[in-house]
């Protein structure tokens, strides 16, 4: 195959981001403490450039590159843009926190960019090999980021846990992949799907492979019962990292599941549907119930994440385009919401004080009505209160589940969402009706404020006009 600028066009976002990240890594070496913010600016520019290139390369057709290991299709376009924009939010929120804690080092942004690159690779993966490498690239960056605050013992411990369990999950995934490869003799998804559909592959081996792949994916997603690492890692990592970890990778995990289960093993839907039902129900149940008991806000949001992962699985397990659309909508909007939620927490931190506890939110309205309102929108969206976007996300997923005749599952989901609403509303109550414990003024830089406003209002905006985003998501699967 010939390689030139024209034939490489579908991969331009990845190529650009890689070059930019390498360049920023080198530039950062020559910066002093005072000019360190240049790294920040360049990283944002790199993300913005990647967005532009994704739009430039986008189109309704499917393009395959690099001997079938890379694919660009409408789904990847939408996911990439969502991912890049949400990472942009995360990078902006992280800046003030890093400055306050005196850990502003270029590595945060560089590792973040490489992590984003890994996610792009996953989104555009068309073979088991690529998807695995993308996942490892992301995971490696995340392990390092969790341990980013070197003087923090909790951070190191969290990184260790994350690393060990993450490596185990990678092993599971790889084991499953090797079985599927053994059964089908193919690595690229369309060919694997072809062999499976042709009925030539050994069913037992395939199903065992599938089990391991699903286990690996659930580990990465943090679905119950493979969620043990989530609360500890979210709590132990610096908030700026939790913010990144808790938002954008959800989109990548969605892509991972889509590529592996739908693109690669779509005809085994009956098998993985049952596995996902168990995972989804357990995640929603445990996530929502345990979150109530948490007093640490990062931990609470970690359990909340687990429950939202259950919802994403709910959409996926419908096994229809409608379900995938709903799950995609859910993943993107949840990632945005989570970025905002952790963003607010980073804004509560300042030198020598790491806001972690739920009661740090108390009286936020008195200290900063604007920030409290943004947090209100975010919490409502997480709880699924109309007219925020979270409501519609849940609605679409439930609709998809009902349309494949699994009403009981929809009822279970609604039941646990109502339980979940309790702790979100409790946080809102603390912000508006409790006296502040700490009355220090909240200072946030201009860019953070602007981004936070966009983020908060987006909760409302997408909620009032969900059709635009939903239409985009739908277009991704209509082709």
């Amino acid at each position, binding site marked *: 195959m010939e*390689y030139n600028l024209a034939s490489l066009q579908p991969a331009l976002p990845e190529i650009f981001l890689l070059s930019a990240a*390498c360049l920023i890594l080198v530039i950062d*070496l020559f910066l002093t403490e005072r000019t360190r913010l240049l790294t920040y600016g360049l990283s944002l520019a790199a993300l913005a450039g990647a967005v532009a290139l994704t739009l430039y390369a986008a189109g309704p057709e499917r393009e395959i590159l690099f001997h079938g290991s890379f694919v660009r299709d409408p789904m990847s376009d939408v996911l990439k843009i969502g991912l890049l924009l949400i990472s942009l939010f995360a990078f902006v929120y992280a800046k003030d926190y890093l400055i306050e804690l005196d850990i502003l080092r270029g590595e945060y942004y560089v590792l973040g960019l490489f992590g984003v690159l890994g996610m792009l690779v996953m989104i555009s993966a068309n073979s088991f090999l690529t998807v695995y490498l993308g996942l490892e690239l992301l995971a490696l960056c995340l392990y390092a980021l969790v341990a980013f605050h070197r003087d923090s013992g909790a951070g190191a411990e969290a990184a260790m846990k994350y690393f060990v369990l993450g490596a185990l999950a990678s092993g599971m995934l790889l084991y499953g992949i090797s079985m599927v490869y053994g059964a089908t003799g193919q690595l690229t998804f369309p060919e694997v799907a072809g062999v499976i559909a042709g009925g030539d592959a050994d069913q037992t081996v395939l199903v065992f492979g599938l089990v391991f792949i699903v286990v690996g994916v659930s580990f990465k997603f943090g679905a119950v019962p493979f969620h043990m690492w989530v609360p500890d890692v979210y709590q132990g990592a610096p908030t700026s990292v939790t913010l990144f970890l808790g938002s954008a990778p959800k989109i990548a995990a969605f892509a991972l599941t889509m590529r592996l289960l739908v693109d690669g093993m779509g005809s085994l839907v009956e098998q993985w549907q049952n596995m996902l039902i168990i995972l989804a129900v357990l995640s929603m149940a445990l996530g929502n119930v345990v979150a109530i008991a948490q007093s640490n806000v990062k931990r609470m949001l970690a359990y909340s994440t687990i429950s939202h992962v259950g919802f994403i699985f709910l959409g996926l397990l419908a096994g229809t385009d409608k379900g995938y659309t709903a799950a995609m909508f859910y993943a993107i909007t949840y990632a945005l919401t989570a970025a905002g939620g952790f963003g607010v927490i980073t804004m509560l931190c300042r030198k020598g004080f790491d806001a972690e506890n739920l009661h740090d939110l108390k009286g936020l309205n008195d200290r900063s009505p604007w920030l409290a309102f943004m947090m209100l929108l975010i919490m409502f969206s997480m709880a699924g209160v109309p007219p925020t976007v979270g409501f519609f996300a849940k609605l679409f997923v439930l609709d998809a589940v009902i349309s494949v005749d699994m009403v009981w599952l929809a009822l279970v989901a609604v039941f646990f969402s109502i339980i979940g609403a309790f702790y979100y509303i409790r946080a809102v109550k603390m912000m508006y009706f409790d006296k502040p414990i700490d009355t220090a003024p909240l200072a946030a830089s201009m860019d953070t404020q602007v981004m936070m406003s966009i983020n908060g209002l987006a909760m409302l905006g997408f909620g009032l006009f969900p059709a635009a985003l939903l239409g985009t998501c739908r277009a991704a699967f209509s082709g």
Partner: protein
Amino acid sequence: MLETYLPVLIFIVIGTAVGAAMIGLGFALSPNRPDSEKNSPYECGFEAFEDSRMKFDVRYYLVAILFIIFDLEIAFLFPWAVVLDQIGMVGFWAMMIFLGILVVGFIYEWKKGALEWE
């Protein structure tokens, strides 16, 4: 192909066996009269105190980690060099990009002072 490796296997076995045989010979021929002074680990005139296996500078671990990374790079370079004639310019540039990415890492190491032994 396999039969060419048989001598290699035998050579490895014999090579190690020679070492073992020589040490065995040493034990067979030499006297063995241990005493506590003779058997004490070497020290400059005083009694050995504390455990001799201590922690040491993290830099040594860092060297070992960097060594692994570069060793892997070499492992990638070997098949490339062998098929350089057959893979054409695409293969050539693929390796140049690979090397370029790792040179970035090398510059990073250098500037961060990971290669500094002060």
